[in-house]
């Protein structure tokens, strides 16, 4: 696009101004020192955030003998992926994976649909006692009965030792409902009105109009929901006592980390000679590292996609309901 004469003139003036006041804009020695410290500080802090994960990783892909002797500190030696293959032998890890992945997928999907739907309904002024019912849901963010009454309540509803305990309570998420509601309110009302004039019902408007238009916010809450499900630990710890098959990955990892004795004994007994040799080669430390790595990898995989939505999510969160 061609610049107008006025813009050209402005640019010229600006340049002249900077030239005239060059001294003011010159980098001072103090600034240089400040910058150096700034860069050093942020580099160091970022390193503390990356290095532990890198350290775990190189220890899981190195020669186990060297790991045992504590020789893997900065780069992998004697590359192998046997540890990851050996995880198949660690009892019950597979079921935990299935439990965690399925609850992440199902729980997040239901939560997103419910939040979108409720978020849409509560924007409708004509709903019967709308503000009361909206507050009825939102106020639950600010109080809770406490851990033990919550546990007793779940027992009352038959949700202990029950897979549904991971899904049903997470469907209604007041905070996410507020986010969606705020977002939907920013969509021009004329769109909806024209749809209603054309004879569309609430469901049709929701499906054809609101759902596609609010995808950015839905992606945001989906990501936060999925991370929450993936990291969930407390519900498994408290509700699933006595049903090991339903432990989530984090709960399983917690149990492994707390076992001081070697994990080798947890590996299935018997098997071929090669398997037994593998068992012997693996020490508990490496298995712990490998399980940790496996539970952290999915987060790292979705992380680049998540990042786009962070800022939006947290900024919308600052808007009160």
């Amino acid at each position, binding site marked *: 696009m061609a610049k107008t004469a006025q813009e050209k003139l402005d640019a010229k003036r600006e340049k002249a101004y900077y030239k005239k006041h060059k001294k*003011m804009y010159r980098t001072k020695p103090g600034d240089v020192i400040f910058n150096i410290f700034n860069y050093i500080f942020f580099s160091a802090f970022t390193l503390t955030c990356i290095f532990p994960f890198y350290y775990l990783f190189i220890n899981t892909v190195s020669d186990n003998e060297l790991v045992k002797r504590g020789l893997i500190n900065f780069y992998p030696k004697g590359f192998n992926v046997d540890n990851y293959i050996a995880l198949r032998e660690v009892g019950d890890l597979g079921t935990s994976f299935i439990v965690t992945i399925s609850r992440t997928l199902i729980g997040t999907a239901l939560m997103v649909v419910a939040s979108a739907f409720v978020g849409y309904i509560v924007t409708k002024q004509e709903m019967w006692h709308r503000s009361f*019912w909206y507050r009825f849901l939102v106020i639950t963010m*600010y*109080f809770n*009965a406490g851990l033990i009454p919550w546990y007793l309540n779940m027992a*009352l509803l038959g949700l202990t030792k029950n897979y549904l305990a991971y899904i049903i309570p997470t469907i209604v998420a007041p905070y996410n409902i507020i986010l969606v509601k705020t977002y939907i309110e920013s969509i021009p009302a004329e769109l909806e009105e024209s749809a209603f004039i054309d004879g569309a019902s609430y469901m049709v408007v929701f499906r054809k109009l609101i759902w596609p238009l609010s995808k950015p916010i839905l992606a945001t809450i989906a990501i936060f929901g999925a991370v929450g499900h993936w990291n969930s630990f407390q519900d498994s710890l408290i509700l699933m006592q006595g049903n090991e098959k339903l432990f989530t990955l984090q709960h399983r990892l917690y149990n492994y980390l707390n076992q001081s004795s070697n994990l080798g004994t947890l590996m299935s007994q018997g098997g071929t000679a090669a398997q037994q040799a593998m068992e012997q080669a693996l020490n508990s430390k490496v298995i712990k590292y490998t399980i940790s790595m496996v539970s952290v990898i999915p987060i790292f995989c979705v992380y680049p996609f998540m990042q786009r939505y962070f800022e939006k999510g947290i900024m919308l969160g600052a808007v009160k309901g």
Partner: protein
Amino acid sequence: MKEEITEKKGTLSSLWIVQRVIAVLVIVMAFFPIANPAKICGLVSDKISLFTSAISYNSLISDCARAFRMNWVDETTFVVTYIGAVIAVLGIAATGVGVCTSMGNNKLQRFGLKFSIIGAIAEVVGYAVCFVGYILVRDTNRVDKVAPSMPVGVFIFGGIAALILILSLVLFVKTPKALPGEKFEMESKYKLFLMFLPFAILGFLFCYLPLYGWRYAFFDYKSGGTLSSDNFVGLKWFAYLFKNSATRNDVINVMKNTLAISGLNIITSWIPMIFAVFLCEVRNMNFRRFVQAFTTIPNFISWVLVYAVALSIFSTDGFINTFAKEVGLMSQNAPGHNYLMGNSFTWVKMWGWGTWKGVGWSAIIYIAGISGIDQSLYEAATVDGAGRFQKMRHITLPGLLPTFFVLLLMAIAGILSNGLDQYLVFENAENRESIRVLDLYVYKLGIGNGSIPLSTVVGMFKSVISVVLLFAANGMSKLLRGESII
């Protein structure tokens, strides 16, 4: 003539209200264990409701494994009871559907009444089947072990179901027939409400219903026991908390830890803001993005994984020890030092982990805040000869202060809620005394020791104080800024 019609309508609508209220009452009652029609003997837990009995056969027979093995009672008895409960709950659900559709026009109302009638009949049948289960179990020869008990609930629920049936029939007769060609219709305000209703029920079940668990605080309840007038102890546990010297010392210790760790977090809550301000001084955008990307990662890692990371770095065979050995700071055979054990600086350590995990994430909101500050302010300040720090002090920080203030108030309101995960995973034999925060204490007391009433009391105090603090913070915000935070 006209008056007569309105009068007729008046009685009809009050009948409707009665029918709806009763039906809702039954639905709510189905979730409470009191008067469960499926409680046919002592083997059925006191804690399960009609609803639970119907959705989970396993809960119904959870205490019966031994009885089945010893052949005290035939399993078919319980199958019969279970079937009864399922029929009854389906009936209740049908009544619920009937109530929902009763908000529509005549055609929809008549349609719904059919549901209500069928539902009420199903309920009665279901309770009768439950009663058959009781009759079967009554004939057992091991009365002492099985302890058959008359399910009073059958009569209570059955009576109410009969009432609904009568009301529905009356309404069905009184409701005028739909005109030919009339469609199912409902006012949109009720339509929207009915769409919202399932979620309101979920919210009720998981957020309001737990408050009903506070009643455990007033009973001498042991895990697996029952609540009855025999073990009602009034405020005994509230007094016990302060009178018993052991628990009093525990509570004092726990409060000290909680307030110390929360206090450290509140005192240092400016750190994310400074982090953001300094990060925005970095002119290289790629470096800035890189830092932002990696410092937010720990926020998305669970505390269990943070602990795994901590182990890999600080434990006896972790990075610090092996590195010290490699560079010769420690002899090869020296036993490593486990930095996670030990009780020195536990509060500071916990604060450190929290800050490491959260600072990058908390900084995002401030970074967004900085990018929202008017750039011309900086330009004007530069022209006036302000240096870097002067600009920070006089432009950036004042611009961020409202955000900081809100977050600070929220932190103060949450002073008692440190969360459970972090302290649970980092707890060990040596730091037990100084890591035990309120949430961990409640967990250990209730789930670990089984002192359910006492831990409920502690939890009640925590909940009430938190809500009061929240309102106080909100009031303060209104007073100082004229804006509420909740």
